């Protein structure tokens, strides 16, 4: 026997369930008057710097059916590649940018839309620049532990080709599962929970 390390165990996760909206987007599910607005609904204002983009996301189950009870949160750097976080030590991020967004998928269509800006490049731990990307966290009924993935931009070929995280993906055929496709000012991104096109999820 040796001394105990005295570490605690992380609280085990449980599904967010079908009524996650009550807690996280109450106005979205018609519980009004408790919070002025749903947290994370608006990420930008008219002073935010950077290119405005719309992201239209869906989460698809193993049959290809869009989830209509999922909740997605995103976390991204500002246009200069800085995160609005106390742990960001390289400089102050754009005060007019929230960096964090939260949206429920539409209860009829499963579509989930974020109005944001295209993020700048953030360094990997060894100083190489990662390609512009958005961090995604997905919870829903039937998901026992929130799923983490990243969205990259298909029109950033050069940056994507040198991205150290994408380079870690052994089966190159799976890289397109992380690419949002641009149509005008809108990027579309389908997240596949299962199947041949299963999205690359991360253990971060």
């Amino acid at each position, binding site marked *: 026997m040796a001394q105990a390390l005295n*570490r*605690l*165990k*992380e*609280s*085990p*996760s*449980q*599904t967010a*369930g*079908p*009524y*996650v*909206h*009550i*807690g*996280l987007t*109450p106005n979205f*599910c018609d519980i009004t*008057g*408790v919070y*002025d607005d749903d947290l994370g609904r608006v990420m930008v204002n008219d002073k935010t710097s950077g290119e405005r983009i719309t992201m239209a996301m869906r989460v698809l*189950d*193993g049959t290809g059916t869009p989830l209509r009870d999922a909740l997605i*949160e995103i*976390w991204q*750097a500002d246009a200069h590649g800085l*995160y*609005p*976080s*106390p*742990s*960001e*030590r390289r400089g102050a991020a754009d005060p007019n940018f*929230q*960096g*964090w967004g939260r949206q429920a998928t539409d209860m009829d269509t499963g579509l989930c839309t974020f109005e944001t800006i295209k993020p700048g490049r*953030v*360094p990997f*731990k060894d100083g190489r620049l*990662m390609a512009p*990307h958005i*961090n995604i*966290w997905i*919870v829903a*009924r*039937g*998901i*026992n*532990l*929130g799923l*983490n993935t990243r969205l990259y931009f298909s029109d950033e070929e050069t940056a994507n080709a040198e991205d150290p*995280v994408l380079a*870690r993906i052994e089966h190159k055929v799976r890289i397109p599962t992380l690419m949002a496709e641009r149509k005008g000012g809108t990027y579309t991104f389908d997240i596949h*929970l*299962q199947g041949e096109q299963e999205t690359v*999820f*991360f*253990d*971060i």
Partner: protein
Amino acid sequence: MSERLSNRPPETGALFARDRSWHPPAFTPGYKTSVLRSPQKALLSLDGTLSEITGPVFGHNILGELDDDLIHNFAKPGESAIGPRIVVYGRLLDERGAGVPGALIEFWQANAGGRYRHKKEGYIAALDPNFGGCGRTITGEDGSYAFRTVQPGPYPWPNGPNDWRPAHIHFSVFGHGFAQRLITQMYFEGDPMIWKCPIVRTIPDRAAIEQLIAALDMEATIPMDARAYKFDIVLRGRRSTMFENRLEGN
């Protein structure tokens, strides 16, 4: 949102690896909805970059006066929600045992009859016109938090032919890094329904399940008003950043 809420220096170390054997696996056929919603390929392991170790911070300016009082935050003036009145309190800790200050905790639940205020809800139990079911708070300097509510009821749900959820409160928790993000549920000490629940049973280890059961604390009750349940929540810990010469809490 980048408002500093603590006197502690910001943490910049990577997070401890997640012990995925302590969490429920993605594919848990006893909980039927997980079958088509569980990734089947291996996850890509990534030691935290800035994208994972940073995360949003919320200021007290987002909080309304009744956000931590579910008995009153949806009730008509002078009225209150029906049900056994309780206080839920505890600390938000990390795996090193340190309190996590300035962290947003959100909670939601069914009313005392087990009914949710949601258009997709199908249980015949009555709605309480004075109960919305959501609340939130921000942890103090030592990671402590508390809120008032009514004890939720158990409810049936479509899974097996006669599955019931034990009484529970859903918790959504932020740490300081996006990779600490966690959603879980709190159960109540002594409830025999806990051990019959297919969602509880997605957690493989009995000790892990016990970590989600709040203890009745009669010393923390408010006499003639509310009983108290204590529920501590643990988020992933962080490695110290040696170059900052901060070894405490390692």
